[in-house]
C-alpha cells in the first residue's frame, strides 16, 4: 500500500501545526465559533450531541496493521475505548476534547494518517472498492488513481470553499461494491476499444434529501488527463453550484437543473482551457504511486479447500469469504454486526485483534467497507479455519455479510446532532428478531440500511429495505422503503406508506421479509422479487 515520502509527511505535519495554531486562536478568543467551525470541520472535528466527534480519513479504505493499532490506541488515549467505522470507509470517535485534538492529529500523522477534509464544503476522502487489488473481476487496482486524486484534492486552494461537500469514488470493475453512482463524482476505470485504460466519469449522484443516480458525463478520460478533467468538473460546480439554499447546493442539483448535457458541455469547455495550463501530474507520478500497490508475494500451489466439517465455520465461509484473483486465496470480511450489537463499532481490543490478524494472515493489510465492516483482503484458504477460531474468540466471527443482520446504520439520535430519530436501537432489534426467528439465513442477500434523518448517512435510499427515522410531533417515527440498491444495478428505494413506531418498524420489516419468502422464485434475492412483483403485495401485507 501507499507509503508517504518526505513531502507527504511534511504536508500532514504542517497541517497538524496549522490546526494547533487555529485551535489556539479559537481558545484565545481571536476567532469566533462561526469562523473556527469550517476550519475544525476540515480537520474532521464536529460538535455532536455529547461531545466533539473526530472523523479520521482512511483513504480508499486501506489500512495496515500499524495504522489499525494506532486507531485502537487513539480510542484508548483520547476516547472511551471504541471507534465507529463509517459508510465512507472512515472511522470516527465520539468523545474527543477540543484541547486534545491537535495532539491526536499529531499521533495520527506518526502513522501516515490524518483527518484532513473528512468534513466541510470540500472534496472529502476518496472512497473505493474494499476488494481492490484482490477482486477477481477488477480491470486494475483502482487505488493508485484514488491516491493521485487524494493528493490533488488535499488542500486544493480553489476547492476548499465549495457550495457543499463533495464525494468522489473510484472503482475498476463492473460489479460496483462502493455505491459509485451515488457519489458527486463516480469514476470507473475502463478499457476503451483501442485497449487503453481510462476513466468513465459519472457526475451528480448522491443520497440525502434529493437522492439521484449520477448520469454518465464522459465515457472515457485518458489517464494523463484525469486530474485536469476532475478540475474542470469541480470548477464548473464551484462557479455555478447553488449557494442560496444549502439543501440545493450539491452538484447533483446543478447537474439536474442545468441538464447533464449542458453541464458536460461546460466541463468540456473548461477542460479544453485547463489542458493548456499544464496542471496534470506526469504519468510518471501515477507509475510511482502504482509501485506501492503491487501484488504481495502470493504463494503458489496452495490448497483451495478448507476443512468444512465445523458447521458454523462452513456457514461463515459461505457468507464472509469472497473469491480472490489468486488461486488459494480469498478475501475475508469481518462482520462488525454481531446480533444485537452496534453496527460498525469496534472496541480497542477488537481493533488490536484485527490489526494482528491482518499482519498474520493478510500481508499486513485490511480494509474498511462502506457497509461498516473490515476486510482482510488476502487470506490463504488453507488457513481459514485457524483465522476463524481467532475471530470467534474476539467476538468477530458473525456470519452475516449482506444478510439482513449486516445492517448499515448511521449513529442516529444517540450521537448525532442532525438526527431526528435513533437508528442503532432499531438495527439492534431487527438483528435480534431475525436471529431469534431463524429467518436471517433463509432470506439470503438482503441489504437493510437505516438513517436517522433525511441526510441519509445510513444509505436508506439504497437499501433493499431502507428505514428512515423522522420526528413526528416529538416522537420517533420510522418510514419503510423498498427496492433500493447501491450496486451496479443502482436504484432508489420507494416509501411504502405511513411510518411506524419503533416496535412497529421491526414488525413491518418482518412482514416485508415474509412477503418475499412466500413469493420468491428460484434464485431470486429480495430485491429481484420486489422488482418483479412491485410494491403492492408488500403494501397489502404492511397496511392490511
Amino acid at each position, binding site marked *: 500500500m501507499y507509503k508517504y515520502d518526505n513531502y507527504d509527511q511534511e504536508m500532514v505535519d504542517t497541517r497538524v501545526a496549522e490546526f494547533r495554531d487555529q485551535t489556539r486562536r479559537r481558545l484565545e478568543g481571536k476567532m469566533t465559533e462561526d469562523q473556527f467551525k469550517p476550519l475544525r470541520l476540515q480537520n474532521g472535528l464536529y460538535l455532536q*450531541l455529547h*461531545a466533539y466527534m473526530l472523523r479520521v480519513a482512511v483513504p480508499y479504505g486501506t489500512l495496515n496493521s500499524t495504522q489499525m493499532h494506532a486507531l485502537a490506541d487513539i480510542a484508548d488515549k483520547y476516547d472511551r475505548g471504541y471507534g465507529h467505522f463509517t459508510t465512507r470507509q472512515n472511522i470516527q470517535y465520539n*468523545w474527543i*476534547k*477540543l*484541547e486534545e485534538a491537535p495532539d491526536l492529529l499529531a499521533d495520527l500523522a506518526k502513522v501516515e494518517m490524518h483527518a484532513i477534509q473528512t468534513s466541510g464544503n470540500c472534496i472529502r476522502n476518496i472512497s473505493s472498492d474494499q476488494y481492490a487489488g484482490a477482486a477477481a473481476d477488477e480491470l486494475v487496482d483502482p487505488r493508485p488513481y484514488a491516491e493521485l486524486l487524494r493528493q490533488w484534492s488535499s488542500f486544493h486552494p480553489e476547492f476548499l470553499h465549495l457550495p457543499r461537500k463533495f464525494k468522489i469514488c473510484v472503482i475498476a470493475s463492473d460489479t460496483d461494491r462502493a455505491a459509485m453512482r451515488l457519489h458527486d463524482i463516480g469514476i470507473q476505470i475502463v478499457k476503451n476499444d483501442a485497449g487503453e485504460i481510462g476513466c468513465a466519469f459519472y457526475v451528480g449522484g448522491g443520497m440525502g434529501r434529493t437522492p439521484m443516480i449520477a448520469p454518465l458525463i464522459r465515457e472515457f478520460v485518458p489517464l494523463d488527463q484525469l486530474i485536469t478533467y476532475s478540475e474542470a468538473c469541480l470548477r464548473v460546480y464551484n462557479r455555478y453550484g447553488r449557494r442560496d439554499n444549502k439543501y440545493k447546493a450539491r452538484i447533483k442539483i446543478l447537474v439536474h437543473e442545468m441538464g447533464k448535457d449542458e453541464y458536460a458541455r461546460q466541463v468540456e469547455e473548461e477542460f479544453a482551457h485547463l489542458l493548456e495550463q499544464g496542471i496534470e501530474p506526469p504519468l510518471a507520478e501515477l507509475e510511482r504511486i502504482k509501485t506501492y500497490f503491487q501484488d504481495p508475494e502470493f504463494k503458489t500451489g496452495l490448497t483451495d479447500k478448507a476443512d468444512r466439517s465445523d458447521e458454523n465455520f462452513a456457514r461463515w465461509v459461505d457468507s464472509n469469504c469472497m473469491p480472490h484473483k489468486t488461486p488459494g486465496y480469498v478475501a475475508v470480511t469481518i462482520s462488525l454486526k454481531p446480533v444485537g450489537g452496534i453496527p460498525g463499532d469496534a472496541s480497542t481490543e477488537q481493533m488490536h485483534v484485527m490489526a494482528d490478524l491482518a499482519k498474520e494472515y493478510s500481508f499486513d493489510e485490511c480494509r474498511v467497507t462502506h457497509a461498516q465492516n473490515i476486510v482482510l483482503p488476502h487470506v490463504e484458504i488453507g488457513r481459514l479455519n485457524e483465522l476463524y477460531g481467532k475471530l470467534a474468540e474476539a467476538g468477530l466471527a458473525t456470519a452475516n455479510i449482506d444478510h439482513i443482520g449486516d445492517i448499515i446504520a448511521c449513529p442516529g*439520535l444517540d450521537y448525532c446532532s442532525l438526527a431526528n430519530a*435513533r437508528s442503532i436501537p432499531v438495527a439492534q432489534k431487527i438483528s435480534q428478531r431475525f436471529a431469534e426467528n431463524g429467518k436471517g439465513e433463509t432470506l439470503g442477500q438482503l441489504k437493510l440500511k437505516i438513517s436517522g434523518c433525511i441526510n441519509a448517512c445510513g444509505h436508506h435510499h439504497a437499501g433493499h429495505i431502507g428505514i428512515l427515522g423522522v420526528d413526528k410531533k416529538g416522537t420517533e417515527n420510522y418510514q419503510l422503503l423498498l427496492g433500493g440498491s447501491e450496486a451496479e444495478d443502482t436504484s432508489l428505494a420507494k416509501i411504502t406508506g405511513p411510518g411506524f413506531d419503533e416496535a412497529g418498524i421491526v414488525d413491518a420489516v418482518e412482514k416485508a421479509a415474509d412477503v418475499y419468502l412466500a413469493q420468491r422464485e428460484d434464485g431470486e434475492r429480495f430485491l429481484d422479487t420486489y422488482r418483479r412483483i412491485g410494491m403492492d403485495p408488500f403494501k397489502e401485507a404492511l397496511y392490511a
Partner: protein
Amino acid sequence: MKILTGNDLLTGLVTWWDGQGWSPHVDDAVDVGDEAETILAREEAARRVNASYAIEATRDEAGKVRPAHIKDRVRALGPTVRPDLTLKPAEPEALNWVI
C-alpha cells in the same frame, strides 16, 4: 420553563446553566425567564460555553428537570445504546426517561 444548554468549549461535554455557572446535570438547570439571550451572549463571548441555545423544559415536584424534546433528553443522559457511558450507568431505567 426555559433553560439553557450548550457544550463546554474545551471538552465538548453537555452543560446546563445553573444560575451561577455550567453544570453537567440537567437537574441543576434553572428557569431563565426572558434572560436567555443576555446570558448566552455573555457566556459565549467569555468562551465558557459553545453552541448554546435555550429550550423548553418542565420541573416535577421532586425537582427533576425534563427537557421538552427527545434530543435534549438524549443529551442530558448520554447515548441510550451505551448505558455504561451515560451519566447514570447504574440506573438502566433511566433509559426509559429519554423516551
